[in-house]
């Protein structure tokens, strides 16, 4: 693989600031033809900024980039593609209302006559079919894109890039919306691209994937490239420590001891066609139940049904605090159930409103509160101050500053905080630490442990097994809408390999 002395791509000394805050400091790394370079780091570590600079979306303040030894100075995304650098974004740019061929060729339609704007549909279909074959995607060029599965969309996006003969492809979190078989398919395609001498830059949170697939790993932390090492010389703990900047065991607080078991919520045989199948579990007061499972395993769907956000017209019963319960969001709120959704910006916050307005919202919908009830503003402000203090929300002004002006971590604390004003009894947390930095993560972990210690029942959904293992009393594993096993904490920990195996087992069998 190291046939050439000149690397395929190289960048060095890249600095970048946004409105006075420096986010990249002297970042540099190199990649050889056919090499698989894993790029990892916490959110906010500068991964996306670096890749956006390479992809021509952002311009660096200083630093240089070279492609095959020649200076490479992209000023717009098109420059990158023309130079041979393809970028597969995490958010796929697929137009669901158009055909596969149109999505593939948009922006560069073949013309029937050189100078006239008429599309040569035959050439369009042929070129598309050719590109689809290269990534092994078996769909018709005429198929509408809304009919494609997430994995097929991902492959379509790759085919689009590959058809433009790139020398290097950047993948930004390509597996987040893929099922296990789709992931394996993706990895095969990537291996094939590598064999053709294309350099792969692969950004992902899934450390095991990166470790297994990459030749080298670059770790970013707080805008510095803190490590750039051959993968075989790195241990998993070493990688995590480089990402976080300290040994990981300190990240999690002690799990509070469980007293007498008093169930807060009991779910029996919950079934919803095509979503959940015979799910049973219970959570006791003071208990943190972790819910593990792959994307699409039904974890979030379960949470949404429990909170009455998605319909439940199948079988099974939910009983809450000893009484049968048919949830609707409003009932849930008045019965002191809390739900932190995975999409903070679209489902959690009133972004342009003040923190006080955000923090009072749940309280104003809570038990016994009706539309006519006058709002006691002093009380709301003092509630907001209490919560901000408890959660250490760092904001200068609770009344005037809009929620969007806060960092991701503090925004998440606001969403958490609005539920804490009324002392909930069951808290469903769906990916509570997604997209926030380590410092804030640690504080959210502390709050979760503290709340459990006070007798709150917690249902913690997370894609990070590490996080579940650090906080939960028990972990329920979900797969294909089923509860496929519950693991108890033993000797202060969990058998993570067994959990992972259980979570992926059903998919493997089905594939």
């Amino acid at each position, binding site marked *: 693989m190291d046939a050439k002395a000149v690397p395929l791509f190289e960048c060095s000394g890249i600095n970048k600031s946004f409105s006075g805050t420096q986010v990249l400091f002297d970042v540099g790394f190199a990649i050889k033809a056919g090499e698989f370079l894993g790029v990892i780091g916490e959110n906010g570590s500068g991964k996306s900024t670096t890749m956006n600079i390479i992809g021509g979306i952002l311009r660096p303040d200083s630093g240089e980039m070279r492609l095959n030894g020649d200076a490479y100075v992209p000023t717009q995304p098109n420059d990158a593609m023309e130079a041979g650098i393809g970028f597969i974004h995490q958010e796929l740019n697929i137009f669901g209302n158009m055909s596969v061929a149109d999505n593939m060729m948009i922006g560069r339609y073949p013309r029937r006559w050189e100078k006239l704007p008429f599309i040569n549909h035959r050439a369009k279909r042929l070129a598309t079919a050719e590109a689809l074959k290269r990534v092994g995607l078996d769909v018709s060029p005429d198929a509408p894109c809304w009919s494609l599965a997430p994995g097929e969309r991902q492959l379509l996006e790759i085919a689009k890039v590959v058809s433009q003969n790139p020398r290097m492809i950047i993948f930004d979190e390509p597996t987040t919306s893929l099922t296990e078989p789709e992931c394996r398919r993706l990895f095969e395609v990537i291996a094939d691209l590598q064999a053709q001498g294309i350099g792969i830059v692969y950004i992902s949170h899934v450390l095991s994937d990166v470790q297994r697939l990459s030749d080298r790993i670059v770790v970013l932390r707080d*805008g510095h490239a803190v490590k750039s090492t051959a993968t075989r010389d790195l241990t998993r703990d070493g990688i995590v420590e480089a990402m976080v900047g300290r040994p990981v065991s300190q990240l999690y607080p002690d799990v509070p001891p469980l007293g007498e078991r008093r169930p807060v919520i009991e779910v029996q045989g919950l079934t919803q066609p095509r979503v959940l199948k015979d799910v049973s579990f219970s959570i006791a007061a003071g208990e943190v139940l972790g819910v593990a499972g792959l994307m699409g395993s039904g974890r979030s769907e379960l949470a949404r049904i429990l909170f009455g956000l998605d319909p439940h017209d199948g079988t099974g019963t939910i009983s809450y605090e000893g009484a049968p319960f048919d949830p609707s969001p409003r009932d849930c709120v008045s019965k002191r159930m809390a739900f932190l959704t995975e999409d903070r910006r679209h489902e*959690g*916050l009133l972004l342009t409103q003040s923190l006080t307005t955000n923090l009072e919202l749940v309280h104003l919908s809570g038990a016994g509160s009706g539309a006519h009830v006058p709002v006691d503003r002093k009380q709301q402000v003092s509630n907001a101050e209490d919560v901000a203090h408890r959660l250490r929300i760092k904001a200068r002004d609770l009344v005037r500053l809009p929620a969007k002006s806060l960092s991701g971590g503090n925004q998440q604390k606001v969403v958490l905080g609005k539920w804490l004003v009324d002392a909930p009894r069951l808290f469903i947390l769906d990916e509570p630490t997604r997209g926030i930095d380590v410092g804030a993560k640690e504080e959210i972990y502390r709050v979760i442990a503290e709340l459990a210690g006070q007798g709150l029942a917690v249902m913690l959904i997370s894609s990070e097994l590490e996080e579940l293992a650090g906080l939960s009393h028990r972990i329920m594993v979900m797969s294909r809408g089923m509860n496929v096993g519950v693991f108890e904490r033993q000797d202060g920990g969990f058998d993570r390999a067994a959990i992972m195996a259980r979570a992926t087992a059903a998919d493997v069998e089905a594939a």
Partner: protein
Amino acid sequence: MVSDTTVPPRKQGYRVLIARLLSEPAFTVIGLLVVYTLAVTAAVPGFLGAGTLSAIFISLLPLLIAVIGQSFVMIVAGIDLSVTATMGLTSVIAGSVMTANGGYLADSALAVPVGIFCFLFFGALVGLFNGLCVAFIRMPPFIVTLATMMFVSGAAVLYSSWHTTSVSIGGLPSGFTRIGYGTIGPIAFALILTVLVVVAADFGLRRTTWGRWLFAIGNNPTAALISGVPVRAVQVSAYTLCGTCAGLSAMIYSARLETGTPVLSQNLLLDIIGSAVIGGVSLFGGRGSVLAAFLGVLLLTVIDKGMQFIGLTLFVVLSVKGAIILLAAVLDALRLRYAEGKS
């Protein structure tokens, strides 16, 4: 990006000024009002006289009530295009009940109370229908209310044609027409009614849980739903109140015209929505106040009357009003961009 204390990016020089002006449309409106009044007074000295100004003030009252109703809907990120049609419908229904020329309750003591009830009830009914369509069928407010507008204005003409051979229903009892320009002591009856609406609406919007819910839904309906806000019910309430306000407004207009007519407020739709936007009620939802509605109505009415005072033709007046509303809508869009930090 990495640190926890994120300070909003500092804006410089003229950007600060623009941001300030945008975030407080009230300043812009008051400034324009003063400049315009002085300009008209310079051209036609009589304009600033007490008589003219109080006439302007009395004339804008029913418009203000309709704009307040519209503001409720706009705050939940909706729009009600059917208000003027609703006003026409309530006007002919109430007129058909009260008129001395063969009304259902002609010369009865109940005529006026029942007539007033008709204004409120049928206004609320149309609003309720709009609200149910938007909240439960999830139809776009624009289409629902556009369709309602056409249906209701057609129905109003049809209804009045059953009761009269001319377009409008005359012969309304004096007990009713007094609402238009009558006074209680020294104070105009319409003013008392409007002040009551203003106080109730302002209290509702700023001080009650319902008010907070309106703003929350206009800002982020999903977050509101998950936080336990009864989103649908609140949406329906906003449209219903908008219809009720339209009925109330129609009551004052009908009393002033002393007729029930399906074309009561044909040309008012743009004035109603325009006033709200000029005052700073956002077309994108989540922003607005009774003060904004009032300032918008005041500016638009003063401009209208001022130009008539100078003696400009109706077409000039229309173009200028259109231009101002357009400008206000542009400012509203800019405000959103600044507020969302998308500049």
